[in-house]
């Protein structure tokens, strides 16, 4: 007698699109504000990382792993932002090349 083995489904949560997703609707204002929001978030990460590094260097008791994680967050958020920007530009160019 063999026990039926129920297949386990590994449900990986889908990667949510970043807030700077291109919106092709005429809501240009919504897109603009979403883009500005993303820029300020990335900038926030950068500032945070820089402040963390400065605190560590001046010996004010900043923990080492805080510095490591903050700089990684800044780096990764910037990379993500660049990739999204590239996608947006590519999509824009494709739209412009379309024969109407």
């Amino acid at each position: 007698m063999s026990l039926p083995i129920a297949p386990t489904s590994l449900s990986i949560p889908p990667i949510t699109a970043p807030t700077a997703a291109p919106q092709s609707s005429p809501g240009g204002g919504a897109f603009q504000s979403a883009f500005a929001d993303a820029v300020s978030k990335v900038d926030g990460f950068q500032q945070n990382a820089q402040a963390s590094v400065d605190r560590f260097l001046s010996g004010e008791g900043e923990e080492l792993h805080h510095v490591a994680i903050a700089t990684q967050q800044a780096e990764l958020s910037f990379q993500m932002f660049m990739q999204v920007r590239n996608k947006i530009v590519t999509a824009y160019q494709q739209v412009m090349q379309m024969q109407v």
Partner: protein
Amino acid sequence: MSLFSSLQVSSSGMSAQRTRAELLVQNLANSETTRTPEGGPYRRQDVVFSTDQQASPFSAMFQNEVGTGVSVSDVVTDTRDPERRYMPGHPDADADGYVAFPRINPAEDMVDLLSSTRSYEANVAAISSVKDMISRSIDIMR
């Protein structure tokens, strides 16, 4: 207390154990010494440890990154009366033929030396472990 200042704390532990070991070795070597410059036989010496606030040499203000290390606050000399043995022919014998010997039990000091070695090793292991943690934290960024 950051990881770096815990290195300093472990290092202070190593220094303290080293001093203790030096004194124990001195006691063992002089366990039969009857003649000293101060007069009389050698007297056993021991250390007194106390906690000591250790500031990292990289820290800005004394309050930050302070760990509680150990330091040797005092070296105490045994004040008990020396052991007297009857040896009339000895050059240091007094009028009654008794010679004053140090009151040192070598077995006791040997055991203390072993325990001091173990503490030293434990501090070294702590330093290794902290160094490993720091390296791995830095590796997050590589």
